């Protein structure tokens, strides 16, 4: 094999390996059942879940808003810790079109109790296993909490986060997207 051929082979092999590596990296964050991200966003906006009082609440009513959907539970301490900051942001930017929605994998009475304690000023919906499966299609591979999805006003997903969202980071994103 000539030196040039060898270089070409190495280059091609390198690109192939890099592509395979990119595929591996992407599949970690892509929806696990092969749905397109756009479809997952549409499914999220089409969701109807009961609130703490049992009233069926549709996320579609918030189309056009900057929607921050936060999957959480009272049994998840990091989830509880980040919520007071969400309350502050909702108060500050709600008039400008920001809407937080909490989806709790939890009992309604525990959710209601915690919501009252922190003066929750945005809807707390009760999600079951189906809601967690949906979070998986949005990229929450491990179905862990907290998991937050930011949906732009045009209905596309602007950001997903597994783990706590720092107030400063969220504030910067809200400022940019509102």
């Amino acid at each position, binding site marked *: 094999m000539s030196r040039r051929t060898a270089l070409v082979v190495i280059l091609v092999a390198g690109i192939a390996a890099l592509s395979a590596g*990119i595929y591996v*990296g*992407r599949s970690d*964050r892509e929806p696990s059942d092969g749905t397109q991200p756009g479809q997952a966003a549409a499914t999220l906006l089409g969701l109807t879940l009961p609130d703490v009082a049992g009233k069926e609440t549709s996320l579609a009513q918030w189309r056009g808003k900057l929607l921050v959907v936060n999957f959480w539970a009272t049994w998840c301490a*990091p989830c*509880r810790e980040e919520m007071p900051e969400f309350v502050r942001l909702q108060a500050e930017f709600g008039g400008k079109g920001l809407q937080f929605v909490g989806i709790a994998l939890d009992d309604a009475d525990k959710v209601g109790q915690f919501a009252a304690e922190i003066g929750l000023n945005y809807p707390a919906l009760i999600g079951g296993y189906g809601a967690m499966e949906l979070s998986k299609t949005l990229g929450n591979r491990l179905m*862990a909490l907290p998991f937050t999805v930011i949906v732009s006003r045009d209905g*596309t997903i*602007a950001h997903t986060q*597994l783990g706590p969202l720092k107030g400063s980071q969220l504030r910067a994103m809200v400022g940019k997207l509102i």
Partner: protein
Amino acid sequence: MAAGLIAALTLGGAGAQSPDLLEPERAFSFSARPLDATTVEARFAIADGYYLYRDKLKLSLEPGALAAPPVLPPGKIKQDEFFGTVETYRGKVVVRVSLAAPAPGATLTVKAESQGCADKGVCYPPQVQKIALSLPPAGAGPGPVVEFAPAKKNWFK
């Protein structure tokens, strides 16, 4: 360097952030071994940076009535703003589960229900894991350790 390049390329899209997290079966490795014809020893090996909640840990055997509810060892006590006193396990937790009557040679399922979190600030949903094992004959010593094996194998881990 290749990993960094791949990371830069994959994170460049519509923003996504995920901490490096273990699959729950790796963060909380469940195993069990029969000690004799009556008792099974269940064990969780907990990875560094992860912890289990004591009040969410349940061990049981199927089929078979237990002699008594399994005794859970004390955990590390923490004060939680919402739940008050909370006990957690780190490193490992070992629990003995005993049948009400010996069942030499019987095949049993050891069932563990658990819920844990990572110090990185993430909590896993409640897990249910089952291990099938056989009790040794009467008078025989402990049997081998059986590790919990998840149904799906993920190639890329």
